[in-house]
């Protein structure tokens, strides 16, 4: 039989010995001192409620804390998810609680829900970041700091009776390393007992098989380990919320009234509301805060600092001061920033110059084009006007000629002989012609055949003989 020896290496100078006390010293009042200190300070608790619109988040909060937080109904048509934190001051006996309830508005309403988890993760990270900043300050006041880190995330699962929704799985996976998650089945008065049992098993198996870490109630403290262990087996809690009071028997309880019965909120056989309240508020609130600080916040802090390039020991294996490194990093960062600014300014100036030059060129060109165009148009118009003028002049001339011809009709007789042939041809053509066409012929002839006359008098006479032999109808040339 082998007996294992355990050697405990203890540095020489330190020896832990257990001593017994001779009398009552009094340091057993330490917890009380702590308690009275924290009571004076007041407590702070932050709850994040994640769930679809209308699933009963606000009602459950009202039921849990037995009060009416003002809340308007959210609409289904938000463009994205946004978080709405509200802080309330509650008091019970002489204990003050600063309660912050963060609601996710618009969760699960969009058609494309791939980015729905991002605002939630960002919010949680921001709260951690704020705390980290406060911690890293030179002059800090942590005892006065209003801690906004989320201590608990209640994830509301829709009571379909089958399994988790795909959105639920994706979101919980993203949140499980940042916050304590307690999944609860909302509106549980729509699932019968047998269905509920199957549903719970299915949900837990899905969470386990996908590696989602939900909050386990601590079982290391003997005072509460038993109750916590039994509660762990009841997860996820199937809750019903109500602020309306209904008379049942001779008591008035919070319940929901249906035609077929009354669902009492605080009846353990109806739903798990009482269990949730016990676990969340009465037993484990402090543990939740501790877990948030010790586990989730520390994880965030470590990741963040590693990102910034800090290590626990520097290359020479000397423990290094955070402050020094921080200052060095900061300087470097500022230097970078300045350089970038300069670059951007330079780029901007260059761009402005370029654009100016471009614009100028463009403007010049366009003006030049316009000028050319106008010049062309002007010439075009001029030409047209010239043509018109010529036409008008010709008309005038023709008209004058005719006028004169008409006046001097009697003088045309002796000149008929040499123009007869021409006239006859014209006559045969224009035997039945209207005056207009014959005058046109005359015009044509006047234009095409240069008159074989030396002087204008003769020209007129030629024309007049033509006129005389044509059929002249009163009433007009054209």
């Amino acid at each position, binding site marked *: 039989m082998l007996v294992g020896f355990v050697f405990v290496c203890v540095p020489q100078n330190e020896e832990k010995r257990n001593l017994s006390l001779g009398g009552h010293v009094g340091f057993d009042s330490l917890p009380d001192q702590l308690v009275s200190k924290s009571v004076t300070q007041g407590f702070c608790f932050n709850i994040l409620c994640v769930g*679809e619109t209308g699933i009963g988040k606000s009602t459950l909060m009202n039921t849990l804390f037995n009060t009416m937080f003002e809340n308007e109904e959210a609409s*289904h048509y938000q463009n994205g998810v946004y978080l709405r934190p509200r802080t309330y001051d509650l008091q019970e006996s002489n204990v003050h609680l600063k309660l912050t309830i963060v609601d996710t508005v618009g969760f699960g309403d*969009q058609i494309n829900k791939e980015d729905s988890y991002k605002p939630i993760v960002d919010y949680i990270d921001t709260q951690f970041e704020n705390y980290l900043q406060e911690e890293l300050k030179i002059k800090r006041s942590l005892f006065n700091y209003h801690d906004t880190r989320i201590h608990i995330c209640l994830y509301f699962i829709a009571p379909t009776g089958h399994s988790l929704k*795909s959105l639920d799985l994706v979101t919980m996976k993203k949140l499980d390393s940042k916050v304590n998650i307690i999944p609860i089945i909302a509106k549980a008065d729509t699932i019968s007992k047998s269905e509920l049992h199957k549903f719970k098993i299915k949900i837990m198996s899905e969470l386990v098989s996908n590696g989602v870490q939900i909050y386990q109630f601590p079982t290391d403290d003997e005072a509460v380990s038993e109750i916590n262990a039994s509660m762990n087996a009841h997860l996820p809690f199937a809750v019903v919320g109500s602020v309306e009071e209904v008379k049942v028997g001779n008591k008035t309880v919070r319940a929901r009234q*249906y035609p077929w019965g009354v669902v009492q909120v605080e009846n353990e056989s109806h739903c798990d509301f009482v269990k949730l309240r016990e676990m969340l508020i009465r037993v484990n609130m402090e543990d939740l805060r501790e877990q948030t600080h010790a586990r989730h916040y520390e994880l965030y802090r470590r990741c963040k600092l590693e990102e910034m390039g800090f290590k626990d020991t520097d290359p020479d294996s000397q423990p290094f001061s955070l402050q020094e490194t921080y200052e060095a990093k900061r300087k470097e960062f500022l230097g970078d920033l300045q350089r970038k600014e300069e670059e951007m300014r330079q780029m901007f100036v260059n761009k402005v110059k370029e654009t100016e030059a471009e614009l100028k060129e463009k403007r010049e060109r366009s003006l030049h084009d316009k000028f050319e165009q106008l010049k062309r148009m002007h010439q075009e118009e001029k030409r047209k006007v010239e043509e018109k003028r010529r036409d008008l002049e010709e008309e005038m001339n023709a008209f004058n000629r005719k006028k004169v011809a008409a006046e001097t009709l009697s003088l045309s007789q002796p000149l008929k002989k040499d123009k007869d042939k021409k006239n006859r041809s014209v006559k045969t053509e224009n035997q039945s012609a209207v005056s207009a066409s014959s005058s046109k012929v005359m015009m044509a002839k006047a234009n095409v055949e240069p008159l074989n006359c030396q002087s204008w008098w003769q020209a007129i006479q030629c024309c007049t003989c033509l006129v005389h032999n044509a059929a002249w109808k009163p009433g007009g040339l054209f």
Partner: protein
Amino acid sequence: MIQRKVTDFYECEAVTREHLAILSQLFFRLPEKQYVGFATLPNQVHRKSVKKGFDFTLMVAGESGMGKSTLVNSLFLTDLYKDRKLLNAEERINQTVEIIKHTVDIEEKGVKLKLTIVDTPGFGDAVNNNECWKPITDYIDQQFEQYFRDESGLNRKNIQDNRVHCCLYFIPPFGHGLRPVDVEFMKALHEKVNIIPLIAKADCLTPNEIKKLKDRIREEIDKFGIKVYQFPECDSDEDEEFKQLDKELKECTPFAVIGSNTVVEARGQRVRGRLYPWGIVEVENQSHCDFVKLRNMLIRSHMHDLKDVTCDVHYENYRAQCIQEMTSKLAQDNRMESPIPILPLSTPDVETEKLIKMKDEELKRMQEMLNKMQQQMHDKDQ
């Protein structure tokens, strides 16, 4: 003329009676001659239809877990979904919508019904549900197209009517009204199929909440212009009771339904219902839910109207659109063969109209430019 020697008082009476009988026959034969007999037509229709049998295609759509299968089983009192495999959440992250058809033949009092249920698993289940209704609209169009082809074919004896006559859309009761995915789905389908919206799992709502939700949903349906199935107006000569029932029916939409296939014992009777620690929900109890109204409307009174609206309105719209597209395509392609006779279109070609408009605008612009330049020249001259 009957000549008889009246020998006796009794004989005389008999003769008078005989005379009377003959006379009465003469008088009463006239209306008999006017009876044509087409009042038996409804009976003939009834007989023929019973012999032919009926068919009905019902589509159910909605997220999973809304109780669609349970409701269908409750409606038709059969077990359609025997071996169903439900997917895990992980598998559903990127799920696409499938279309699954179940066909059963059921018979009641000699009337045969071929019932087809078209199921749409995967609708609204994925994380990204963009256009998740596309497979559904494609399916409906496909059925219309197939019927269109059959109808225009040469052998029309055995046309199988697979067109979807009605779509039951399940709205979750957990929200405050319609969600964007509900609105988009209904808008994509309201011109292709008769949509009947239902509030699913209504046993999580108290009567007040049901009323509020119904009002909200009706309001939003109006706001978004969704055309759900409207019950036909009843004739003015129907009796008051019928009209009252009809009015109640119309005010009750959308129906808040609960489904169950398990039988429980309530008030000494065995009824279909759901057993809770605080009470028993009876599916067929009118004060518990609107299941009875839905069943009566869907099966007992309006089944044929649903089929008619599908044939006369939705299918005709599809057909007209299809033909118009085909003719405009033919005009462009100039192809000669087509199995369908080309109908003359009253609307002019859209393309030429567009060109004309463009040219008009160009001309206008040039005119303006010319005016401007003339003005400028005029200014220069002055």
